[in-house]
C-alpha cells in the first residue's frame, strides 16, 4: 500500500554505503538534503536547475544532478558523493589525476566534474578526447580548466583500463 501524500516525512537515504534517517520537507531536493541535512557539502550547489553539473552524484552507479531530484525520490537508492570516492587517505584515481593535471582552479565545480568523470569511465564513455569532451559537457567550469580536465580523465581512464 503506497504511503499517503504528505508535506514532510522521515526518509532513509543510503549515501556512500551508510544509512541516514532524516526528516525532510517534500520540497527538499537531494542536493539540499546532502548539504544541509547530512552536512555532506562536497556536493556543490551552482544553479539548482540542472544547468551546471556542480551537484553531480552517482545514483545506483549512474551520474545524475542531485538538484533535479527530490530527496524523497532517492529513498531506496544508493547515492555516491565525492566524499565516498577516496579510500581513506588514498585518492581515487580520478581525484589523483585531477590534482596531477591541475584540472581545476577554484575547485567548486570539481566534485561534480569528478563524479561525472567517474561515471563516464564506468560507462565506458571516456575512450577518446572528443568523447571525454562531450561526456563532460554537462559540467560547467567557469575557470576554464577544460583542457586539463580532459587530460586528467584520459589519464585516469587509461590507468583504470
Amino acid at each position, binding site marked *: 500500500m503506497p504511503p499517503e501524500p504528505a508535506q514532510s516525512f522521515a526518509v532513509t537515504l543510503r549515501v556512500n554505503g551508510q544509512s541516514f534517517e532524516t526528516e525532510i520537507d517534500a*520540497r527538499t531536493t537531494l542536493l539540499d538534503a546532502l548539504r544541509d541535512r547530512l552536512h555532506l557539502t562536497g556536493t556543490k550547489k551552482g544553479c539548482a536547475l540542472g544547468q551546471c553539473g556542480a551537484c553531480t552524484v552517482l545514483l545506483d552507479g549512474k551520474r545524475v544532478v542531485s538538484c533535479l531530484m527530490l530527496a524523497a525520490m532517492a529513498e531506496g537508492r544508493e547515492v555516491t558523493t565525492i566524499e565516498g570516492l577516496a579510500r581513506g587517505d588514498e585518492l581515487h584515481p580520478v581525484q589523483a589525476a585531477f590534482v596531477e593535471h591541475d584540472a581545476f582552479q577554484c575547485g567548486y565545480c570539481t566534485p561534480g566534474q569528478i563524479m561525472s568523470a567517474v561515471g563516464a569511465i564506468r560507462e565506458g564513455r571516456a575512450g577518446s578526447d572528443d568523447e571525454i569532451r562531450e561526456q563532460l559537457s554537462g559540467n560547467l567550469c567557469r575557470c576554464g580548466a577544460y583542457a586539463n580536465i580532459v587530460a586528467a580523465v584520459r589519464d585516469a581512464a587509461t590507468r583504470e583500463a
Partner: protein
Amino acid sequence: MQPFTYAPVADAAGAAARALQGASFIAGGTDMLQLLQEGVAQPAELADINRLPLQGITEDADGAIRIGALTRLQDAADDARLREAFPVVTEALDLTASPMVRHMATVGGNLLQRTRCLYFRDVSTPCNKRLPGSGCSALDGENRHNAILGGSEHCIAVQPSDLPVALISVDAEVQIQHADGAERWVPVEDFHRLPGDTPQIETVLRQGDVILGLRIPAHARGRRSHYVKVRDRASFSWALASAAVALRLDEGGRVTEARIAVGGVATKPWRLPRVEQELLGVRLDRDRARLAAVWAAEGAVTRSGNAFKQPLLQRTVERAIIEAGELA
C-alpha cells in the same frame, strides 16, 4: 516553492486516480524541478510515478519497437535494437541535454517538457502559457529562441525536445491509458497541440491520462535517416533548429518514402509534408535537396529576433537530407 504533498504511486491506475484528484506527476524530475524552483509550476500534490512498471524497450514479433514511458533517455540511447532499427532516434537522444540529465529524464517526460521561452520561465513577466490572458511578452521581446512556425498572436513558444522530432520521422505513436482503463494510440505528430488561443494546453492528454509508452512501427525500419541539431555551443544547449530526416530510396536512387520533422523552430515538433512531397519520386542529389528544403520555412512568421531561423531552418533541413541520403 509552494508546499506540496508527495507520495509514490504503484501503478497506472493509482497514478490516474491521483491525477483526477489534481496531482501532477513527477518522473525524471529534470523539468519539473526547474519549474518548481522558478515558481512556474505550483502543484498541490506530486505523485511520483517512478515505480510504475513502464521501463524498458521491447521488440514486437513484427519488428516494431516499444519504449516504456519511464525508460530513461540514456537507456534508450544505449539500446542496440533501437540504434539498429531507428538510428535517427538514437542520434536525437545523443544530442539531448547532458549525460546526467539523460540518466534521469524519461521518454514520456521528454514529450511533456515545457517550453524554454524566457518569459514562460520568468514569473515576473506576462505569459499566456503560464498565466492565460496575461499577454505574450515574447511577440515583441527577446524572441531569438521563439517559433517561426505554428505560432499564434497568443504564443510563439517553442516545444524544445529533440526526441519527438525524431519520433515523427519514424511514424511513432504514443500509448495512453485513461483513468477509466481505456487505451488509445496517438501519433507523435498529433500529440502536441498548436497554441492557438489556449497556449496553456500543450498536448492531447486529458486529466487522468497516463502515458504508457511509445511504439515505433516496423514499417518505418530501413529508412535512411539522420538528425541534425544546430546549437549556439557545441554541446548541452537547445536547438536553434533541428531536423530529422528519414528516407527510403529505390535501387535507382529515387525517393519512395520521406518523413521530415523539425525542432527548435515551431510551437510543436513540426512535420514538413511539403518538403517530403518535393522529394518523392526524385533521384536525390544535392540540388534536389536544396530545392526541397526551400519549402521548410513555408508559412514562417518571423519576429525581430528570430528571422534568422528561416534560412537556418532551410539549411538545416538541406543538410539533414544530404547526410541522410549520404550525398555529402
